[in-house]
């Protein structure tokens, strides 16, 4: 079981690796990754797969709520925090 710090670091690393252009210090847990298209529509399914790996659970796409991928804070809250968005 990963700690919150480890999960957040893994998410940040995934975003930086997947985007390929953004500098590590330009990405915070509140950077709007969808609005700024740091994660694009082509990468969203990869993000879902990565989250399935991290959580160890299958994600039902139909049940996902708007805003769930707004930033790393939202992803953490919805997939790992109290407010389970899946």
């Amino acid at each position: 079981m990963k700690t919150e710090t480890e999960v957040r670091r893994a998410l940040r690393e995934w975003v930086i690796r997947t985007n390929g252009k953004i500098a590590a210090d330009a990405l915070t847990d509140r950077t709007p990754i969808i609005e700024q298209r740091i994660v694009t529509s082509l990468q969203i399914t990869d993000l879902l797969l990565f989250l399935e790996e991290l959580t160890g659970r299958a994600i039902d796409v139909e049940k996902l709520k708007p805003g769930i991928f707004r930033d790393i804070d939202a992803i953490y809250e919805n997939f790992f925090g109290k407010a389970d968005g899946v």
Partner: protein
Amino acid sequence: MASERSIDWNLLPGYRWHENGQSTFSGAPLKLYQKLDRLFLQWAGERGAAEHRFPTFIPARELDRLDYFRSFPHLVTFPVTLDPSKDNLAAFVRGAPLDDAGHLQLAASAPIADVLTPAACYHFYIQFQDERLAQPRYVTTRATCFRREDHYAPLQRQWSFSMREIVCLGTADEVKAFLAGGRATVEGFFKKIGLPIEWQNATDPFFEPARSSKYLMQKLDPVKIEMVFNGDLAIGSVNFHRNYFGEAFRITRAGADAYSGCIAFGVERWIFAFLTHFGTDEAGWPVLT
């Protein structure tokens, strides 16, 4: 809404419906069309939007940059011409131009490299490609748009229809402020004239949405809000494109890919809403200013 009038479109003076998904206007319905578009232009003018008039065809190569053909293959319409070789033209002339079903028998067709405009605002991103914007840019156009559908209905679902768009290109904040201001204006207008409209989050009509990552993205981060009449007819929409078009067409603002957004009005659908809600007698129509 049950209170809306049901109209026999075949009997409406000044209006003619074509089974191939098109409308002809004259008389009072044409006057309404023109008044509505003048109203949209007035709203565009209030935002300092410069009017443009674009041609009908868009090079397929430009739309391909947007992955348009994979996203909307079911909607696209192409201009087709005969293969210009003398033999082919001669064969076409010798044969029957139409078969019994009324379908053209083209012999061979020439390669197709253009598309009939599917949405008015695409023209702007193509027009402004490679530009560095020193300030936000506000523009407007009305275009005849073409979207192939599996069925058509008078004024509500047409193969060719008129779309007026007001567009902003700028930073994310500039575009968001433009969209919020535009929505407030339109919302105020609906209230003033008493047209019942609900604002609903929506997605674009992607092909096979269940398999479309763009559809999924729009569900997860809504960027399209529609003005819905009668529970199911979107007569317009407010759209935030993020920096999608800026990136695809290398348009920059403040050192980064430009953001863009548009407010779109489907003129025929507005006419439908007006006629069914306020009646076909122009004396009953609200003042359009």
